[in-house]
C-alpha cells in the first residue's frame, strides 16, 4: 500500500532527438489499480520501467509515499534491486535454467528468509496460482498461461506493496485472459497493493483498471475511471483511441457543406448548442439509433436520413454502414435490423452521446 508520485518526469535519448516522455506528472494513490493505456511507442512502457528503476529519467522526480526514489535535480537514483517492487515482464522473463520452484523462491533466498518460512510462502503462492504441480519443471515445459502464473508467483512471493505489470494479458488466448483478469482482480482485492500496468489493449484496460491514464507521444492525455474515459473523452485522441469500432468524426469547418454536416447543425440547434465553439463532433457507432420514423417523429429527435450500404453481422451485434449522400457513417445495432443494402433508414443520437471538440481538439463541455 504505497502511493507513487511522478513529478515532471522527462526522458530523452540524446540531444536533437524528440523527448520520449515530456514533463509527465501523475499521482497514483494507495491501492489504486492504474492502467497506462496508449498506442505502441507512446512512452507507457518507458514510464513503467522508470518507476521500476530499469530506465533513468532525464528530468523530474519519482516519489514513493512522499519519499523520492529518483530525483534528477538532486542526483538521487535508487537501483531497482533496492526498490522492493514487483514487476511482471511482458514475455515473463522466467529464468530458463531454474525450475519453477527455484524461480519463485529466488527472491526469498536472496533475502535470507529461513527455509521453513520460505517454503511455506512459496507453497502458498504456487498453490494459489495453481502451479504447485509444476514445481520441478522448467519454464520451457509450460504453456504460455502457466508461464505467466509462474511470473506472477515469483513476483507475489515477495509480497511487494507496488506491483508493475507489462501487458499482462496480451500473450494469452481469450479464455485465459478472463481467468487471469479474475486472478489479478483478486490479488488486488486481497493484498490491496498499488498496481500499475501498461497496455495498448483497451479491453484489458477497461476490464482491469480502476483508473486509466491515456498517453500519446510521451504525454498524458487524460486520467479517469474507465467510464470517464469512454463517456467523457477529454480530447479527440482519447475519443478516437478508445472504442472497439472507431468513433464517427464529423469536421465542422469543412470547406463545402454536406447533408451530414447539415444534419449535425440541425442536431446542435435542436439541443440548443448552436453557439458552442465546435470544430468537430464525434459520435460512437454504438450510440447511433436506427429506425424508420414518421416525419413528425423524425423532426422531434432531429433524425437524419441515410441509405444502408452494408450490414455486417459480428455475432450478437451488427455493424451497419450508412451512406449520407456521399459521407460514410457507421452504426452498431444490438438487434438484427433486417434491412438490405439500398434501403433508406433514419438515424439519430441523444444529447449525452454527442462529443464536441474545439479548435485545439479539446472537449467542449455541454
Amino acid at each position, binding site marked *: 500500500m504505497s502511493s507513487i508520485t511522478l513529478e515532471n518526469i522527462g526522458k530523452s535519448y540524446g540531444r536533437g532527438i524528440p523527448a520520449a516522455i515530456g514533463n509527465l506528472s501523475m499521482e497514483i494513490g494507495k491501492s489504486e489499480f492504474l492502467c497506462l493505456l496508449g498506442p505502441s511507442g507512446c512512452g507507457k512502457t518507458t514510464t513503467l520501467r522508470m518507476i*521500476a*528503476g*530499469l530506465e*533513468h529519467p*532525464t528530468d523530474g522526480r519519482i516519489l514513493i509515499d512522499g519519499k523520492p526514489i529518483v530525483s534528477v535535480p538532486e542526483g538521487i*537514483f535508487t*537501483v*531497482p*534491486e*533496492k526498490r*522492493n*517492487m*514487483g*514487476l511482471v*515482464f511482458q*514475455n515473463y*522473463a*522466467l*529464468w*530458463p*535454467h531454474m525450475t519453477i520452484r527455484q524461480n519463485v523462491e*529466488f*527472491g526469498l533466498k*536472496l*533475502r535470507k528468509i529461513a527455509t521453513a518460512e520460505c517454503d511455506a510462502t512459496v507453497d502458498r503462492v504456487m498453490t494459489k496460482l495453481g502451479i504447485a504441480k509444476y514445481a520441478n519443471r522448467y519454464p520451457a515445459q509450460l504453456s504460455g498461461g502457466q508461464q505467466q502464473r509462474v511470473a506472477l508467483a*515469483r*513476483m507475489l512471493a*515477495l509480497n511487494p506493496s507496488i506491483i508493475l505489470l507489462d501487458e499482462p494479458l496480451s500473450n494469452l488466448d481469450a479464455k485465459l485472459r478472463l481467468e487471469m483478469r479474475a486472478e489479478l482482480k483478486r490479488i488486488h482485492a486481497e493484498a490491496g497493493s498499488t498496481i500499475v500496468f501498461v497496455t495498448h489493449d483497451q479491453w484489458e484496460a477497461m476490464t482491469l483498471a480502476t483508473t486509466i491514464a491515456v498517453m500519446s507521444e510521451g504525454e498524458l492525455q487524460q486520467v479517469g475511471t474507465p467510464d470517464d474515459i469512454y463517456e467523457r473523452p477529454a480530447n479527440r485522441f482519447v475519443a478516437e483511441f478508445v472504442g472497439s469500432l472507431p468513433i464517427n468524426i464529423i469536421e465542422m469547418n469543412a470547406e463545402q457543406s454536406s447533408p451530414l454536416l447539415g444534419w449535425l447543425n440541425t442536431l446542435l440547434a435542436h439541443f440548443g448548442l448552436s453557439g458552442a465553439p465546435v470544430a468537430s463532433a464525434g459520435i460512437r457507432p454504438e450510440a447511433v439509433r436506427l429506425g424508420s420514423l414518421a416525419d413528425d417523429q423524425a423532426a422531434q429527435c432531429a433524425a437524419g436520413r441515410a441509405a444502408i450500404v452494408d450490414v455486417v453481422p459480428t455475432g450478437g451485434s451488427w455493424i451497419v454502414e450508412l451512406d449520407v449522400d456521399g459521407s460514410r457513417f457507421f452504426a452498431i445495432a444490438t438487434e438484427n435490423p433486417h434491412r438490405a443494402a439500398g434501403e433508406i433508414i433514419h438515424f439519430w443520437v441523444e444529447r449525452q452521446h454527442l462529443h464536441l471538440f474545439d479548435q485545439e481538439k479539446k472537449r467542449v463541455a455541454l
Partner: protein
Amino acid sequence: MRVNSADPTLLLSLLLLAVFCYLILAPVVLLLADAITVHFADVARSKQPLGEFTVYYLRRALFSPISRDLFWCPLANTAIISAAAIIIAFLVGAPIGWLLSRTDLIGKKWFSTALLVPYMLPSWTFALAWLTLFKNRTTGGLPSWMETFGFTPPDWFAYGALPIALILALHYAPFVILLFGNALKQFDTQLEDAARSLGARPTVVAGKIILPLMLPALVSAATLIFAKCLGDFGVAYVLGVPVGFDVLATSLFRAISTSQAGASAVLAGVIVVIGTISVIIDMRLLKEAKRFVTIGSKGAMVRQTPLGKWQVPTVVWAFAMFAVSAGIPLIALALTTVMRVPGSFNLDNFTLDYWIGTDLGTTALRQGILLTGEFWLALWNTVWMVGLAATGAGVLGLLVGYSVVRSPVRFVSVGLRQITFLPYLVPGIAFAAAYLSMFAVARPPLPALYGTPFILVLAILADQMPFASRAGISSMMQLGRDPEEAGQIVGAGWFRRMRSIVLPIQRGALVSAILLPFISGIKGLSLVVVLAVPGTDLLTTYAIRLVDYGYSQAANAVVLMLCVVAFTGTMVVQKIGKSNLSDGIGAK
C-alpha cells in the same frame, strides 16, 4: 548519460578495453611501427639514429637487389597459389555443395561429415602425406612410396606450386561446400519456378536467377580462402622451402628467424594490409547477401533433384573425392609410421619401432615416439597452453559480449567489438610477428615473454578472440535484458545476477566458445611456429621440428596423434553443442 555507480558494467568494459588494447592493438601497432623506424642492428646501414622514422626497410624490401627474393617472388607465388587453390576448391566444392544440399544423394549425411574432414585437420598434415607419397631424391631422406614402387616423381610434381595449391584447395574446399551449400539450401526454388513459368530456359534460369543470387556466397568463399592461403605457413614450408619455393608467409618466417626485424615488419605489414582488404571485401559482400536473403526467405521451398541413373556414378565420384582429400593421405601417413621403408609391403618391413621401439640406430630420437619425453611434453603443452588460452578466450569472449551489449557508453562497446575483431584481419604468422615485436622485451606490467609458455598462451588467446567475442556478443544479444532485469526486480545485485542468472544461462554458449577455439588452436601452426622454443613446443611445432630433422615416421606419428585429437574434439563439439563447423568457419 547518467551512469549508475553501483553497476560495474562500465568498469568491466573499460577494464576489458584496456586488456585488449594491450594484447591486440598494441602488438599490431608496434609491428607496423617497426616497419618504419630504425632498429639497433641497422643504425650503421641506414645511416640514421636509432628509433627514427625511416623508409630504409620499405626500400630494402620492395626496391632493392634482394627484394626480388625477399618480397616480389614470394608475392607472385602467393598470388598464383591462392588463385589456383580458389579455382580448384570451387571445381571440387561447388558440385559437392550442390549434391549435399539439393539432391537425393545416397549417404548424404555421412558425406556431409566425411567431406569436411580435411578442414578438421591441420592443412600441412596433407603436405606431409604428399611428401610421403611423392617426394624424390632432390630432398633426400627416406624414399617415397612412388620411389619404392619404382617411379620417380618429377620435381614439378613432388614440390612447389602444384602440390601446394592442390593441398590448400582440398583443405579449404569445405568452405565452398558449406557456404555454397548453405546458400543453395536457403535458395527458394519458387524463384526458379517463377522464371520457368515465364518461359525461361534452364540456361537462362541458371545465368540470370541462380548465379546472381549465389554470387555473394561464392565471392565470400573465395575471399575467405584467399585470406587463409595468405597466412598459411605449414604447407609451403613443407613442400616449398626445401626446393627454394617461397611464399609471403615462409619469407616472413625466414626474415624473423634471421633476425631481420625491419624486413619482417614490412612483410607482415603487407600481409596484414592484403588480409584486411580481402576481409573488408568479404564483409561488404556478406551485407549484400543478407539483403538478398530477406527477399527470398518467405516460405522458402527447396526441392530435391532426383539423381536417377546418375546416382551410382555420383556416389562413386563423391567417395573418390573423400579418398583423395582425406582417406588416402591419412592412410598413407598411418601406414608410413609402421614401415621401415615407406611403401614397401613386405611383411618384415612392418614395425612398431617408431611408436614404441627402443635403441633405434639413429643419432637422436633413439626410441619410439610414445617413449619419448619431448612428445609427451609437447602433448601436455598443447593441452594446457591451448586449453588455458581457449578457456581464457571463451570467458573473456562472454564478458566482451556482455560489455558490448550492456555498456552504457557507446564508444566503449564499439571499441571493444572492433579491437577483439582485429586479429581476424591479421593472418597468423603476421600476428606472431606482432607478438614478437611486442613481447620480445619487457612491456610493463609484463616482463619479456619470449621463450616462456605465456607468449604462446597470450598469442593463441588473442588470436581466438574474434570468434570468442562474436560468439559472446551473439549469445548475449539472444539472451536480452529481461532475465537480468527480472533478477534486479527481486533484489539481486550485479555480482549475484552474474553468478546466478547470466553465467548459468550462458553455460552452453560458454562451452562451445571454449571448445571451438581449443580445436582451432591445437591444429594451428602459423601462429605458434615463430613463438615456440624447444622447451615450449606444442604438438604442431614439435612435428615441424621432426620434419626439419628428417624423422619422417616420427613426424607422421605425431601428426596422426594431433589429427586424432582434433577430429575427436570436433565431433565432441558437434555432439554437445548446437555449434558446428560452419559456425567456426566465420572465425579463424
